[in-house]
């Protein structure tokens, strides 16, 4: 009898061991939805605006257009953070409206929000950034370049404009180069409406070295640091010159993440950062959207470059030349091959 009691006790103890499992969820994934209303800055609904979403799981398979009340809905979504963007083409170049909103979506719930659309800003833009370097195993990335574009209807001037690389935001300038001329008032270096300008550290044909590199022999400007012993100055090409005291390195930017701005040049006291009011345009790029965005929202509300791979020969470019809603996540896309001096959707100049 005693052994039977022992046995029963042991069995009971074993079967009463604490469960190591979790409670089964009661809500089902993939059944969330988003409902947004698109309005202009006066609150009037925008009809027929093209609306898309982007998240860490990808992009909306096709754009959807708002109804007469400015409303659009997306169904069967996964729970995560979404950036929903809206765009409405205008009658003229300056009439384009665009805006976006960030929404977190929870399982089996509908997230409601409003997208306020602003007139797309025109002017001097950072249109393309090639930072990744070509496909190679020698850590070669000397073919980096930046392309500027004048999306306005007027001729602009590059005199005194500064090109800065930032360490997070505009209060931390890590490199600063400047166009010659007098900021704002100078008229020596014009850039016509619809014109591209390419800035490169090494304006040579890099495709001779690496097949997936780029020919920069036609670059418009050389980004040059006279204090750098490795730098070669190409006399036929004007320079955007380093103005940081004691800096001996040549210009370079992060291969898969960085923050780049151009500013009028009225404020060149880089030690205490660059005044926000002088910033003309700025782009943050990073290889993964889930990284924290650091650049001031007034300059760029979202980072470009999700999926940009080092040494891939790829670049990031605005989806149409000069398109700027101050949210690089939706303004930029990744190009398989860089297009210095031209735009993928406008053809070569």
């Amino acid at each position, binding site marked *: 009898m005693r052994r039977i009691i022992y046995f029963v006790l042991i069995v009971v103890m074993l079967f009463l061991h604490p*469960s190591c499992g979790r409670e*089964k969820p009661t809500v089902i994934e993939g059944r969330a939805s988003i409902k947004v209303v698109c309005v202009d800055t006066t609150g009037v609904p925008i009809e027929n605006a093209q609306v898309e979403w982007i998240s860490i799981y990808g992009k909306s398979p096709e754009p959807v257009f708002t109804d007469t009340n400015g409303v659009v809905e997306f169904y069967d979504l996964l729970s995560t953070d979404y950036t929903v963007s809206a765009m409405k083409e205008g009658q003229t170049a300056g009439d384009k409206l665009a805006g976006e909103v960030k929404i977190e979506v929870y399982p089996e719930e509908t997230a409601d929000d409003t997208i306020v659309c602003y007139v797309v800003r025109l002017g001097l833009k950072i249109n393309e950034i090639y930072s990744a370097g070509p496909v190679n195993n020698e850590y070669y990335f000397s073919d980096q370049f930046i392309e500027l574009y004048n999306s306005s209807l007027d001729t602009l001037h590059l005199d005194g404009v500064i090109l800065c690389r930032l360490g997070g935001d505009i209060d931390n300038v890590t490199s600063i180069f400047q166009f010659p001329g007098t900021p704002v008032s100078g008229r020596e270096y014009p850039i016509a409406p619809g014109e591209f300008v390419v800035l490169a550290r090494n304006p040579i044909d890099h495709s001779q070295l690496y097949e997936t590199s780029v020919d920069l022999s036609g670059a418009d400007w050389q980004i040059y640091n006279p204090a750098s012993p490795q730098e070669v100055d190409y006399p036929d090409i004007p320079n955007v010159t380093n103005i940081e005291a004691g800096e001996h390195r040549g210009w370079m930017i992060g291969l898969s993440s960085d923050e780049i701005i151009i500013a009028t040049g009225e404020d060149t006291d880089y030690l205490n950062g660059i005044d926000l009011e002088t910033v003309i345009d700025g782009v943050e790029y990073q290889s993964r959207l889930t990284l924290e965005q650091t650049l001031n929202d007034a300059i760029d509300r979202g980072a470009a470059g999700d999926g940009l*791979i080092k040494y891939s020969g790829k670049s990031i470019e605005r989806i149409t030349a000069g398109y700027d809603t101050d949210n690089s996540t939706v303004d930029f896309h990744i190009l398989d091959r860089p297009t210095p001096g031209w735009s993928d959707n406008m053809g070569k100049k």
Partner: protein
Amino acid sequence: MKKMFLLIILPTLLFCGELRLYTFDYPVFAISDEDNQLNLWDFGENPSWIAIDKKMGWNDLRMLGGKTGGDRIKPYDPKEMTNFHLTHDMVRLLTPKDVVVCELGYQSSRERNIGNTIERYPERDAFSFTDTTFGNRTFRGPSLSIGYSRKGKYINIGALFSHTLEHGLKNEYTRPENFVRNFGVNIGFSFNLADNLAIGVNFASSDFQEIVETDGDAVIYRDVIGRTERIVAGSGFERKTKDAGYSLGFQSTYRFGLFNLAFLSEYLLSNVEIMDNFSHPEDIVYWQEEGHRIKGILTLSPIPSLLLGSYISSLKIGNWSEHPEYHSLISEIDSAEVTYGGGVRWDRGNFTIGAEYFTGNVCISGEEYIGAGHIERARREDVFRVCGEYYVIKSLPVRLGYSQRTGIVDRVFYGVGIGYRRDKIEFNLGGLYGLKETEEIQARRRDLKFFVGVRIFI
């Protein structure tokens, strides 16, 4: 999702590599061996019965080498794989009631031209983790298992612990590095209720953990939450997979007349947590399985030289997965597997021949709320084995084994071996040739293994 059916991870029990049974592809009835008896250890994996099962002490040294190659049947099959195991195990009878078992092993495997995967066991769960490269990789590591069992007049107790470590490295950039460990514990009690009746219970647990680290600039794809997501890691990437499995079993053996009956019932619980670390740790998915297994064997020996056996087993598993951040259900899938069969063995002096046949049906149904939607699948698998052993002289047996499996992948297996036993020394030498084929993708894969073992009885 590529796969939504995980075999519940049972404790790693290392005392299962007996070379004689290996030659025959582990028959149930067709060959009688000291490691496939109907007792609570061999049949029920209850360590309390080790003290009764092991009648002699020994030292055993085994070496096993193999090469597998051919077409890729599974997506992450290497083009070619070579592996090598060296194992030393020993059994010590401390007293007539106390037995200690210990096994120490080292294994090395080299996989050539393996594609995309950067996990050690990429097909063991649905949430794969891959890159874009093909390359060679090497895994090496030791294993240790130690157990103790004590038999009493009525109650027997036993415990077994095992620990396996593996380190792997793929030679292709981004050079993913794997750190794998598996710890298992199995504790059991058994009762001799009568001379012909024994019952037992055991609790087994395993804890598997793998960490994968990549160099910078890794381009990684993770299949999770129903979608393949590309990750570009600028400064390296780390994934941690924790897989904990538990089983609680009840076993019984009963002998009556010419019959021998064994019965087993097991509750199984397993959960997998996957955590990725890019810039901060992130819970990617949680997956849980719960199941119940029943297995029964009945043998009849109408005359001493003849054995007839029948087998039935049932395994039911329910699994579900969740998105940990939102506690939302990604999938819920049930599977039911029933296998039954029988076998016959005939011993005539220096000659033994046996055959057995098993057939099984697996039904899988459920919902993948993202991806495939409703799932309803069924498949059948048949296994047929023939085994023969002939003693050329009293101490020199020659062994031949053949088995054939048909199912999603067809497999044919040939085994040949010889043994030698004299006084306190036993020697085994053998080789295996296997051929896997699947008509679905017109692929064929070959498997060749050699082994040698020396056992010295104490």
